[in-house]
């Protein structure tokens, strides 16, 4: 009886030892080297897989960082500078400084400033509406207000303001991943620098019609008058195709153009309230 038990234990031990040997040699033979730092870097990333960095997901970014041994052109908008600093430490590299960005809706048409000329009954899909007609107000460039950007946002940072009919960005939630920029068929949304103390100035219009046409469609349209460009001390404003554009790399947020704009198309965000109320030019602040 005891013999059987001993034989069984022995036989199993021998089989186990042989298998272990085989497994050991196979593992040696087919070993794929993976840099352990990839896992570490991937752990540091937020794991949202939003694609905001331009890579397929967080792990793809981590692989790319470790493989190229450089942080040039690689930035996680969700994690921001602190995450990148952590990763730089792991990699023993210098963190590339990058200013925090935010999505900005460059249209102030909406229900307040345009008059409804036709009504749309199709699907709630901005691309479809864009393929079908101009917009309810008549502007061929402005926001259609159907919320494709809201659906595209994975961070719940966008919502349609019922009063204006325009999307609003929640600046605490927006991580500047750029999903809304891609979802908008009219390129209304732009990623801009968040600015010092979160203050930023931008032209809240992208229509390129001539002044009279633009004004007839929308009260708050940029008419391309060029007053802002003249008053800007930093030469940050360019007027092209009847439209002013503020270069956020040059803008110092002095706010002079905001006061100058006759239609209130230039918006200043997070500035002390006093300034705007005095002039009563921007009744609505839409980020």
């Amino acid at each position, binding site marked *: 009886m005891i013999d059987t038990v001993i034989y069984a234990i022995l036989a199993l031990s021998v089989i186990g030892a042989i298998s272990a040997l085989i497994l050991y040699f196979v593992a040696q033979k087919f070993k794929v080297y993976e840099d352990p730092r990839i896992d570490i870097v991937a752990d540091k990333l937020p794991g949202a897989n939003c694609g905001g960095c331009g890579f397929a997901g967080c792990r793809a970014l981590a692989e790319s960082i470790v493989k190229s041994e450089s942080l040039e052109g690689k930035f996680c908008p969700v994690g921001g500078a602190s995450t990148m600093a952590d990763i730089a430490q792991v990699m023993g590299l210098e963190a590339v400084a990058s200013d925090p960005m935010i999505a900005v809706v460059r249209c102030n048409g909406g229900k307040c400033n345009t008059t409804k000329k036709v009504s749309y009954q*199709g699907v709630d899909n901005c*691309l479809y509406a864009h*393929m*079908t007609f*101009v917009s309810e107000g*008549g502007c061929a460039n402005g926001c259609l207000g159907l919320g494709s950007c809201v659906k595209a946002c994975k961070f719940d940072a966008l919502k349609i303001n019922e009063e204006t009919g325009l999307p609003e960005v929640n600046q605490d939630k927006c991580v500047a991943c750029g999903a809304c920029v891609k979802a908008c068929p009219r390129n209304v949304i732009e990623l801009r620098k968040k600015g010092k103390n979160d203050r930023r100035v931008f032209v809240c219009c992208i229509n390129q*019609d001539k002044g009279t046409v633009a004004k007839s469609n929308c009260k708050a349209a940029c008419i391309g008058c060029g007053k802002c460009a003249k008053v800007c001390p930093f030469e940050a404003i360019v007027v092209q195709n009847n439209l002013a554009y503020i270069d956020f790399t040059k803008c110092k947020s002095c706010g002079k153009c905001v006061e100058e704009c006759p239609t209130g198309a230039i918006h200043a965000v997070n500035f002390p309230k006093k300034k705007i109320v005095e002039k009563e030019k921007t009744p609505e602040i839409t980020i």
Partner: protein
Amino acid sequence: MNTFRLGGVHPEENKLASKSNIEKLPLPDKAVVFVSQHLGAPSVPVVQKGDKVKVGQLLAKAEAFICANTHSPYSGTITKIDLATDFNGYKKPAFYIDVEGDEWEEGIDTSDSIVREITLDSKQIVERIKDRGVVGLGGAAFPTHVKYMIPQDKKAEYLIINAVECEPYLTSDNRVLLEKAEEVLIGIEVMKRALGVACALIGIENNKPEAISHMSELAKNYKGTKVVALKTKYPQGAEKQLIYALTGREVPSGKLPIEVGCVVNNVGTALAIYYAVQKNMPLIDNILTFTGKSVKRNRNLQVRVGTPLQYIIDYCGGLPEDTGKLVNGGPMMGKAIVDLNAPTVKTTSSILVISQKESMRKEETNCLRCGKCVSACPMGLEPILLFNLAKQDRWEEAEKECAMDCIECGCCLFSCPAGKPLLDLIRVAKNKIGVIRRLRSQR
């Protein structure tokens, strides 16, 4: 009786204007003519602001292969070349013309006499079609001469004339068949010579018995031209469906009709070719139906290109009070008009007035899994599947499910009892797949 194989629907016909003769619309005082009125590369203006132009004078020249000339439909002065809104509200470059009199350019035969003898050879005909700015009047406005330049390894056997007019309400083709039958038949002879084919088939749906008997009678004098009566079913006027109904051949997915030896043209195009080749007249006018259930008098109007829509409406005695929507084209495939001041273009075939009550969409409810959209689809697609894929942004899968084969006829939308906006999202998918394909070919 012949018809196409898969799917199709039969909406209420409502051919309200089928008994009204074609009327000539008086010329407006001011007109707006778009520089490009076709599918393809834009034309280049050859006249300037302040120039005096005559009817039939070249305004914009085709510089690329898939491009068409634009001629002046009016005599008068060009006051400016600026952007103008089209029916969808988008801005496009256009000539603004102050109309003065009706002076034609020399060399154009404006008499009513019928020119029977065809003097030009095949090459010259195609050249003339190109020169006179003829585009496909079925709706797509594809430059006609391109269809007539057949690749060397292909051979055309049939010329197919699309006179089915399967869209409800539209009657302009019907009136052309009744009033300009001789011209159409000579136009077909010209087209046959250009293509070098012996056989032409004219497909007419059997809801137009007068047109069928009239055309069959006259067609006896033209060897090789045959009128075929087809069972009334929408969308018989679609290229692939019509080819199947007339010849029993099926055009493979993603291929052109020439693959099965067919060239398809609309009746309107045949008429335009007759005028272009036999009378040297450029394409400057078209026949449109002004119709609707609440319109007092439904009419068929011969309208010069560039007539402002408001002018047509005023001529017809204004819009009825309960108007909810104006549609450019038929009720199935037409697009709602956004701007009433927009001018007509070469392909404007109908102005359809829809009442407030009928213009509303059905409320969307859940899918019943009834499969009506699948059995209605004339291309054999699964509209509900494509709809769901498009809703979830799964473009690659939608491409595999042949979303690009969709002809946007609207049968799925028409037959859906749950009021799902099926076609709308399939159109979105087609647009997205188009972008993906372009990116792929760039790589």
